[in-house]
């Protein structure tokens, strides 16, 4: 029972601009970089189809997910027109990979900057300038009584019939495929014909074929020519692509369901290519998925799992009755993405995917649809390609009707794109190292003390308590250490307040999105990492240990 109907894939071209201003980006002024994706391989039993359509002309490419003996592989697709030799070709599997990668739900990552490590130490300056003990005394008192109060860290974890009634419209071998185009008057005749000609069919095939026959549709049937296949040496089934002209813009899902076990669901990813706007289902609800959520940085390697959990939850919530838009991008000659997942498709890929309205491919289409000349005048006009990626999970009950598609005039680029922000790991350690190297307290104080002593000795500072140089030196160094702690404070605040709070928010967002519990999230690798201490040099006695810094601040 290996009849497969409808599986799909392929596509098109272009150059890429990494950063697009069209998307509403978070406050960061810089571009994100691609960090992860949730591609089609994630979903089992996922068929992929590329539908390139302009007006009533369609090129459909199908990528089979068939896994079984090749001798049993059968593909039967209802088509509005009888597909003749020349209207079919073998497409490159690579095209599906390109389109999948280009449109997959993605994760963008941003690298944050911690607050500056500004060492501001002015011991002795007021002295010299103001020449008053009062100021000096106050300054000292401020240093000594200074409590670097840290805000409390809030942690919320969040029949027998006459086969003669079937007309063979075309029969040919195309590389590894034996192809027939059939038209029939009765489904039982069609079924008999297929069975007699070695096409194994699942039970119920005749009943499922009948509505297509009545609609005047033809049948494209293919099976593997084992001899040719051996000669060609491919160890997988290459996608089939065919072109036809019809006002019908639909995908015959129903026939494929005959293979499925009762109640079991299948995934279908449709790449709809059009010159104008976003494509949506006309007879099912089309919804956009959640996008632009800020997630914790530590899910970077697990983004595919996050997306899968989310998608499954969403499908369940919508009772498997919705078509989801995962990506819509309009490519005005420049193929843009933000962030780009791998290399975007090039013109040749779009053409391989069946796009025929790109300049030189128009003539090819005309040749494939014999007798349907394409107006030369508009062949010179460059038209953009818009790609819509639709994802649906369906079974026989939830999608009783074939999918009818409709091209809208929506031109607003949209994608499933989530964001992670990496804190600036090791910012504190870096700051400590800089201060220790460039601002040793003893070195900072020596010249200052010398100046103070000089003032003292000049007799112009008679109102001061006169001290000895070692006493001034000790006082200065104490102030210097306090000043250093002041310079750490914004960084510690950044990690313990800003980053910690944001991380809690992001964990909550992740919980809402994936349906994972807070405990599961906390158990993920990296979730418990102490960012403040990350990147801390293991040795180096000159630097205070980060724990000490935090401790002192809390004192």
């Amino acid at each position, binding site marked *: 029972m290996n009849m497969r109907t409808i599986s799909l894939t392929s596509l098109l071209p272009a150059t890429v601009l990494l950063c697009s201003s069209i998307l509403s980006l978070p406050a960061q002024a810089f571009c994100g970089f691609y960090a992860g994706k949730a591609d089609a391989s994630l979903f089992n039993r996922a068929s992929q189809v590329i539908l390139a359509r302009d007006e009533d002309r369609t090129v459909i490419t199908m990528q089979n997910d068939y896994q079984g003996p090749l001798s049993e592989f059968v593909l039967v697709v209802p088509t509005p027109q009888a597909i003749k030799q020349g209207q079919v070709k073998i497409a490159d599997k690579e095209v599906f990979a390109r389109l999948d990668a280009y449109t997959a739900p993605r994760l963008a990552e941003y690298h944050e900057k911690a607050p500056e490590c500004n060492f501001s130490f002015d011991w002795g300056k007021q002295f010299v300038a103001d020449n008053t003990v009062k100021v000096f005394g106050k300054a000292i008192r401020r240093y000594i009584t200074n409590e670097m109060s840290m805000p409390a860290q809030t942690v919320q974890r969040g029949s027998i019939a006459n086969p003669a009634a079937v007309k063979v419209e075309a029969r040919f071998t195309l590389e590894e495929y034996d192809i027939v185009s059939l038209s029939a008057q009765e489904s039982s005749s069609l079924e008999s014909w297929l069975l007699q000609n070695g096409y194994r069919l699942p039970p119920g095939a005749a009943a499922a074929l*009948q509505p297509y026959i009545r609609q005047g549709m033809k049948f494209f049937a293919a099976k593997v020519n084992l001899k040719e296949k051996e000669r060609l040496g491919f160890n997988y089934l290459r996608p089939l692509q065919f072109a036809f002209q019809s*006002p019908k813009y639909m995908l015959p899902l129903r026939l494929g369901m005959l293979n499925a076990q009762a109640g079991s669901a299948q995934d279908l990813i449709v790449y709809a290519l059009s010159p104008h706007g976003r494509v949506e289902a006309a007879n099912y609800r089309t919804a956009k998925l959640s996008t632009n959520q800020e997630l914790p940085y530590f899910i970077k390697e697990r983004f595919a799992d996050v997306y899968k959990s989310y998608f499954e939850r969403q499908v369940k919530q919508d009772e498997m009755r919705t078509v989801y838009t995962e990506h819509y991008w309009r490519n005005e000659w420049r193929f843009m993405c933000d962030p780009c997942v791998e290399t975007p498709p090039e013109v040749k890929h779009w053409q391989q995917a069946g796009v025929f309205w790109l300049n030189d491919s128009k003539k090819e289409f005309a040749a494939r649809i014999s007798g349907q000349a394409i107006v030369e005048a508009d062949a010179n006009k460059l038209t953009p390609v818009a790609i819509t990626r639709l994802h649906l999970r369906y079974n026989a009950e939830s999608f009783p009707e074939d999918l009818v598609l409709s091209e809208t005039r929506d031109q607003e680029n949209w994608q499933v794109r989530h964001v992670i922000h990496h804190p600036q790991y090791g910012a504190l350690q870096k700051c400590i190292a800089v201060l220790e190297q460039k601002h040793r307290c003893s070195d900072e104080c020596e010249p200052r003390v010398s100046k103070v002593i000089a003032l003292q000795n000049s007799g112009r500072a008679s109102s001061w308590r006169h001290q000895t140089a070692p006493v001034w030196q000790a006082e200065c160094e104490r102030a210097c250490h306090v000043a250093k702690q002041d310079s750490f404070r914004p960084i510690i605040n950044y990690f313990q307040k800003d980053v910690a709070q944001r991380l809690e928010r992001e964990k909550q967002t992740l919980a809402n999105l994936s349906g994972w519990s807070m405990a599961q999230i906390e158990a993920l690798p990296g979730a418990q990492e102490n960012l403040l201490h990350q990147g801390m040099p293991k040795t180096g006695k000159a630097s205070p240990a980060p724990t000490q810094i935090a401790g002192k601040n809390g004192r």
Partner: protein
Amino acid sequence: MFAKLDARWFQILFLASFLTIGALARDFALSWQQVALCFASGILTQTCWQHALRLPGRYNFGGYLSALISCFGISILVRADNLWVHPLLACIAMSSKYLLRAGPAACKSHILNPANLAAFLALSVVEGAWLSPGQWGSSSLLALWFIALGGIVTQRIARLDVSITFLLVWGGVLAARLLWLGYAWDPGAAIWVKQFCNGATLLFAFFMISDPMTTPQRRSVRMLWVAAVALAAYYWQFMLFKQHGLIVALFALSWLVPLLNWLWPQTRFEWRETPPQTSPLSAAPATMPQTRPA
């Protein structure tokens, strides 16, 4: 007390609830700015016309009810990727009531249902606008609400015959098609329910084609006309394989209504039967009573 209320109040109430359901539960691709601009533009346009033509309803709240209804309809039906489409369509739709008028003197009225015109323009000519007929999904509960609430409204405005005729003809041709195609009960029945009990179809049946001002006045003619709309929509959608059959068919056949009213005249519809009043929907400057009873 309810009996005295203008039926349009119920219409507004139900349309508002559908808009809310759509926006909240069906996540319509609609922004509050689009809705706000749509209403602002629709009401402003209505105000300008009322004052420019010195219509008696211009100082009454009742004079603006139909504008609200049209704006709800536009918000529920039309989708756009920008902010100007909704207000533009609201303005054109409201203006069309004063500019496109025809029919015999006894029942001269606007030709097109404003929301129908807006939806037609959105699907055919306006850049960046489109309709999403699948937007309601296929929740049977929602369908029941449509039928129940829509039934109340249309019954109050004495146009339940339109809704019922339409649903019978439309449901009938859909079922006939599925039978002819040879579908077994499963999945045939499920397909029929999906096509028929669909938010877009029910909204059309109870809130658009049932507009008393843009349907023929004589009952027998009206029922035939409604059946013609359903059949034309079927032809468009299932024989030409194009989308939005209902909107297109109503738009196309609305132009016949003045002719049908002229051929088979009948007293015109008034939103409130007693005492005789005017309404902006029926506001024909040439035939308006000069004063509006309190």
